[in-house]
């Protein structure tokens, strides 16, 4: 039963992707929604079944592959971790599919076609891939899902391929995540060679029992960490995520907020027993997470674009999860199951998925109304669309971690974990704790700022129509005064877990047994968050809804451009390699072409020199043969 539910949760979206593409426009919508609904039902069933029947560690899926002496069993597993994440993925995917039917309704214009069938199929494909990642019992199978996710993300970021900025963003996302993905591929190779297995449970067990060489584990751990950092948009590979906001907003909600970016954390949690044997890898992760956490929160504070603000906030929040997992090595192993140490991170993954998806979808509605993503164009939502404003506010409260909303519980769990590690006396715990506390204030500030600008703010752009919509054309040519029902429904759906997430902790299932919230930390955190929000919301007294205005101009520019890290990357990496002209060219070209161009200049000289030897003179080639033979012979004689 559990097995069937898990397999269905993968197969249904995959099938709906295929059917949606094959059967054409008329059916695309039905298949997409049905597929994600099926996945949601299957995932919930799985969660219930796992709770009653216990986990299933491995069951066949794609057979097995023989690799020399290594058998790679392409099997799935189902336990509370996978089931819980699967429910989140399916829920958000379901909401996004419903939302998208309205968001991308119609044919669009010839200049900007909506391409709904392809879009919906890709989202379904992504859902299937994420489900595969979540359920994989083997790293190779996981890698397949991982790559398909990357592909779907690339396609969706570049969905509006008629826009140069979308193409460039897709290219950037592809290139940057690829850097990390190479790490995952290499890690798999290292593990096959060094450990002889890629089965996750075998790896965890073998690493814990010291059956694998420490060097192998460390190498593989660091390589996998590179993949995690890339996929989860952590420093220094975070630069693709803000640009990825070029994609349609529902996609941002699904892939670039709730699920895919959290997949890295999921992978770390899965392999935590292995990572616990190499604290060095975890410490590296903790440092990167701390930098990402504070840096991204600071950057979010000064963003002038709502979606980019949310993107930076995602980086910051995912860093919380990663930090929570990375302090695990300094915490006491309680009940014996090391996976429990990852519980705070997973908890935050789940709550973040709900409230961030809510925020993005709400942002999509706001954009729909205003016709722009710039914060400067927004304002007065409270007066014009009160219910939407309330939903948006719930999301922000969750984000800021105000009790009793979702984010509060999970964030305090993370901080408590860091606190425990810090009191164990390690610098890693302290780093994460300090960064986390700092970030709480910052999160409160930017959440409050978003509220102040969007919901309060200056006079609304639109005439005050309230929720009583008018059919009249309004003065903003791009916007709409009315939000379709299909776009509002998912918001209500997502608001439920955001509001009621704390209830989960009343009856925690086994997975979350490792979660402890220390009252002291919790109260401090809540107060800090509240003060942050309070500061920001009181900003209108300064004469502007935007608290960021209070910052010095230079600092604001610095933060808005995220410490110019993009520029630093460009100056340090891209420019020397490509030259400025080539950079421009690269951004204009297709993704793959960009990759080719990226390798090309570095190899151009070598290639040219080698080509020079192709003189076309046949006896010239014989020179190589004969001289090669001489060198070979001399070398051979030296070697013996």
């Amino acid at each position: 039963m559990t097995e069937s539910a898990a397999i269905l949760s993968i197969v249904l979206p995959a099938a709906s992707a295929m059917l949606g593409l094959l059967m054409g426009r008329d059916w695309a919508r039905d298949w997409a929604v049905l597929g994600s609904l099926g996945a949601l039902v299957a995932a919930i069933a799985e969660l219930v079944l796992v709770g009653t029947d216990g986990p299933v560690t491995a069951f066949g899926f794609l057979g097995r592959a023989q690799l020399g002496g290594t058998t790679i069993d392409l099997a799935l597993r189902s336990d509370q971790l996978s089931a819980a994440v699967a429910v989140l993925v399916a829920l958000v995917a379901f909401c996004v599919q419903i939302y998208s039917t309205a968001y991308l309704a119609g044919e669009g214009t010839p200049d900007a076609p909506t391409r709904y069938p392809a879009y919906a199929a890709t989202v379904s494909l992504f859902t299937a891939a994420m489900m595969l990642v979540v359920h994989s019992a083997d790293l190779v199978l996981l890698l397949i899902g991982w790559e398909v996710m990357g592909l779907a993300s690339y396609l969706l970021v570049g969905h509006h391929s008629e826009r140069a900025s979308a193409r460039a963003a897709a290219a950037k996302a592809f290139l940057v995540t690829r850097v990390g993905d190479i790490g995952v591929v290499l890690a798999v190779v290292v593990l096959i060679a060094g450990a002889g297995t890629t089965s996750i449970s075998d790896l965890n067990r073998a690493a814990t029992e010291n059956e694998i060489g420490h060097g192998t584990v460390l190498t593989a751990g660091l390589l996998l960490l590179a993949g995690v950092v890339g996929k989860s948009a952590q420093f220094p590979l975070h630069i693709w995520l803000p640009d990825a906001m070029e994609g349609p907003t529902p996609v941002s909600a699904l892939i670039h907020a709730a699920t895919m970016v959290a997949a890295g954390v999921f992978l770390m949690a899965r392999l935590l027993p292995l990572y616990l044997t190499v604290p060095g890898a975890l410490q590296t992760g903790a440092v990167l997470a701390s930098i990402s956490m504070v840096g991204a929160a600071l950057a979010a504070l000064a963003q002038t674009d709502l979606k980019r603000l949310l993107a930076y906030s995602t980086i910051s929040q995912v860093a919380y999860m990663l930090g929570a997992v990375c302090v695990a090595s300094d915490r006491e192993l309680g009940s014996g199951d090391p996976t429990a140490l990852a519980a705070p991170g997973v908890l935050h993954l789940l709550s973040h998925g709900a409230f961030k998806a809510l925020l993005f979808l709400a942002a999509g509605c706001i954009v729909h109304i205003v016709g722009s993503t710039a914060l400067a164009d927004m304002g007065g939502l409270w007066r014009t669309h009160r219910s939407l404003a309330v939903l948006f506010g719930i999301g922000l409260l969750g984000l800021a971690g105000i009790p009793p909303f979702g984010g509060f519980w999970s964030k305090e769990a993370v901080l408590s974990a860091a606190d425990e590690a810090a009191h164990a006396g390690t610098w890693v715990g302290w780093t994460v704790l300090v960064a986390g506390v700092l970030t709480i204030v910052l999160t409160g500030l930017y959440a409050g700022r978003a509220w102040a600008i969007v919901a309060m703010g200056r006079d609304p752009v639109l005439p005050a129509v309230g929720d009583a919509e008018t059919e009249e054309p309004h003065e903003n040519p791009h916007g709409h005064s009315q939000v379709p029902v299909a776009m509002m429904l998912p918001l209500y759906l997502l608001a439920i877990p955001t509001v009621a997430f704390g209830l989960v902790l009343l009856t925690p299932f086994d997975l979350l047994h490792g979660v402890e919230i220390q009252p002291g930390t919790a109260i401090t955190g809540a107060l800090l968050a509240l003060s942050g929000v309070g500061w920001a919301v009181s900003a209108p007294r300064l004469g502007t809804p935007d608290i960021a205005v209070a910052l010095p101009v230079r600092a604001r520019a610095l933060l808005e451009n995220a410490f110019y890290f993009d520029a630093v990357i460009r100056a340090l990496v891209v420019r020397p390699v490509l030259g400025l002209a080539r950079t421009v060219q690269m951004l204009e070209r297709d993704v793959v072409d960009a990759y080719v161009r990226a390798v090309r200049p570095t190899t151009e000289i070598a290639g040219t020199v080698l080509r020079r030897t192709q003189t076309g003179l046949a006896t010239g080639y014989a020179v190589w043969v004969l001289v090669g033979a001489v060198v070979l012979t001399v070398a051979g004689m030296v070697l013996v």
Partner: protein
Amino acid sequence: MLTDITGTLTGVPRIDAVALLPVIAPVVALLLVLLIDAVRPVKPLLNLVTLAGLLTAAGGVAYLALEGTERSTACSIGVVVGTAGLSGPSPLPESLSPSDVGFGCSYLVSDLTLTGQAIVLVAAIGCLLLALDGPGAEDRTAHHTLLLATVAGATALAGARDLATLTVALETATLPAIGLIALRRDAQGAQAAVTLLLTAIASLGLLLLGIGLLFLATGSLYLSRIADVLASDPDEKVLVVAVAGAMFALAGIGFKISLVPFHQWTPDTYAGAPLPVAALLSTVSKAAGLTAAAVLLGIGLPALHDAWAPLIGVLAALTMTAGNLVALRQQVAVRLLAWSTVAQAGWVVLPLAASGTTRDGVREAVAASLGYLLAYVVAGLAVFAVVVLVARHHRAGEEHTLEAYRGLARTEPVASAVLAFALACLAGLPPGVMGLIAKVVALRPVVDAQLWPLAVVAALNVALALAYYLRWTALLLATTDQATPRWRLRPAEGIVLGGAAAGCVGLSIGAGTIAGLLPDLLR
């Protein structure tokens, strides 16, 4: 006091026709083709006989593989008698076995033999089908004869266990291929043929010098005997001569696999040869070269492993790096393929660099090499099939650049999908699981032997190669204003395309085949 021993030969060796079927069948077909041509050259009949010859050979391989027994044939037989100071011949002392006094077998059916032959035959059938309607179809008789001779040489090579058979078989696999190139009978064909010919002759000279030195050192041409002598801790002088011989011989075989620096003929010859012949060079010919190297190094010279293994590693690193670097800058499809085949050659020999001195170590390395070769040949055939089709329908013909593929996915989705998948296999990118597994298989011995620098170079080359394979794939999906005509797919080409695609998919699903080749191969 030296004792003189004289041997007497006792007759013609027994020839096991079944064991030699993979060699005999192409030869018989060759003779039939010539006969039919002399009597009444009916084109379909010529094609049929040639195909039947190759299929019979393949059937022979399959039968021998199923039978599973090891057969040796063409063994020299005789008695050896001592005559020292005695009036009449006396029987051989007990301490000497026939192999000690120089007897041996020229041909052995082992897993190595059968795997090599299977790869060669699969590739040859593909190349034949591609060539049926292509350029040179006018010279059907000559083409089929030369192709069959090449195949006979290549299959004999896989079973050859003495240096004379090895040399003759290697030449039989090389010379007719040069003739095939020249069949274009124009300036470019002639030049391509001359280029390969001169490289081949220089290499033959090196190979023969090497064989001369090996023979001087060990006194035998039988590989098993050479291996025994070298393994029995010989004199320093013997060792020096043998190493020099081994290196000369290796250099003499290197051109066949397109190893840097023996690769220089490759791009020019591919560009000047008819495309199906280029396909033959990159599959059949390369397979022959690898089996020759595996037989020579793995069976004859495992004792000199210390000398050749590190050098193979250096050659492999150089080969894949140089091939990839230049391939990045190629525009013409067939030249890109030529350089990519150079790069792949590095991968093919990579595992040999990690073969240990033990029998098992060598076995694993050779098995990995052949596994990679299998994957490469299947994917290569698929790519060549599409390139042949494009060449037939594009105005630039065989010299078409990659631009000819722009937007191909719109007009020819099936062929494009096959090409994209095969390229992914060559690159080792996830959908092409076959290629990924093959790369892992090839890297495995290297990692096991902890040759980290080599493994790193190989890994970097994966990234390097991605660039041009992806560039090609991306062009398929790009938009184009040019309306390209629909293709007319001929049945033979359809079979190759479908067969190679099925092979790629099949080996991707059953990737174990690549990794699990040859349970016990090295004899």
